[in-house]
């Protein structure tokens, strides 16, 4: 195996380790069904691998990963056909497992989280992307870089998306 390939594989493994959880969360916002979501997560990872050899550092690694992940998520939304979703799978999808202890606390958290997830999934795809990037801790400048819009635009739209999210959660101002 060539040195270049080895270096790429090392970089890829590091990226998966570093961003694996973020990619899974992001896939959550694009797909509610667990089995399809797992497939989507793998496809995002595959797309990152395919693009990695051409990555020349024009943007930060974080921007690179989020761009690929969201673009792959958007194509998933655009190409999927409404399929029959098994009820058990959907229920399972809406309640992700939290490995932390304290049962009551965990139930309350799971409930809140399920509500947040369902509210995010009810938003239009681009707004989902924007709020998810904000949740992942990206600055306005980084969100603008991922999405290809201006920072001002991000600030204005994020305010509207937050309002839409609050409405979806049923939070009164």
């Amino acid at each position, binding site marked *: 195996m060539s040195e270049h390939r080895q270096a790429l594989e090392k970089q890829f*493994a590091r990226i*998966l*380790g570093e961003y*694996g*959880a973020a*990619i*899974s*969360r992001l896939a*959550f916002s694009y797909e509610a069904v667990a089995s399809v979501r*797992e497939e989507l*997560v*793998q496809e995002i*990872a*595959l*797309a990152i*691998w*395919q*693009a990695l050899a*051409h*990555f020349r550092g024009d943007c930060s690694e974080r921007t*690179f990963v989020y*761009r*690929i992940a*969201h*673009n*792959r998520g*958007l*194509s998933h*939304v*655009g*190409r999927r*056909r409404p399929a029959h979703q098994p009820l058990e799978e959907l229920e399972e999808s809406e309640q*992700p*497992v*939290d*490995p*932390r202890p304290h049962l009551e606390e965990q139930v309350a958290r799971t409930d*809140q*989280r399920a509500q*947040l*997830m369902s509210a995010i999934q009810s938003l*239009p*795809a*681009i*707004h989902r*992307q924007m709020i*998810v990037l*904000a*949740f992942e801790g990206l600055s306005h400048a980084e969100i603008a*870089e*991922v*999405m*290809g*819009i201006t920072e001002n*635009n991000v600030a204005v*739209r994020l305010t*509207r*998306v*937050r309002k*839409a999210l609050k409405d979806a959660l049923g939070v009164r101002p």
Partner: protein
Amino acid sequence: MEDRELDSWREQWSSVAEPPAEFQRKVQQRIKRQERRFVLGNLLTVIAFLGMLIFGVFMRHQSIWMGTGWGTGICVLVFVSAAYRIWIMRGTWRPQTQSTRAFVELWHKRVTARIRLLRISMYVSLGWIIFCAVLTAANWATIGQDVGAHPKAWVVLLVVCVLMQYPVIWYGAVWLRRRKLAELNEVRKIMDEMDGKSLP
């Protein structure tokens, strides 16, 4: 300034889902599978290319009435297919690494082009049927003798080519076009969202 609401959402969000079990191993397996498929695909293409080329050259030297036409047609088809595959393979610009706006705009262009291509190919296939019918009628003096000599073989050829193959191609193109139109609607919706048309 402290933003408690956002922090609380972030906390709930960040506790969601770890990567699926054996995520890295499964991805590695998919990469290996894809690479094997890529090598196998290229190998099969080369074999098919050479096979078709030999067949085309062989047909060109046959003295039967269709020999030259068939041979030339196959050779041209093989070269066009090979050029198309190379053109696809060298597509190094990966839209997925671009910003969402650039990606969606390119996606829109590609879906529109694909729909246009499908529409054209439907007309071309219709034109091809008419062309074949006209060619057959013009050469009926020669073909008619062959039909008279092997009527069963010609009936089979007619059923396979006209009654089965063309409807399959036609309905396949219609089905694909319908899917692409649905995709185009989705892309347009995403573009509208991108332009901020879906929130108050």
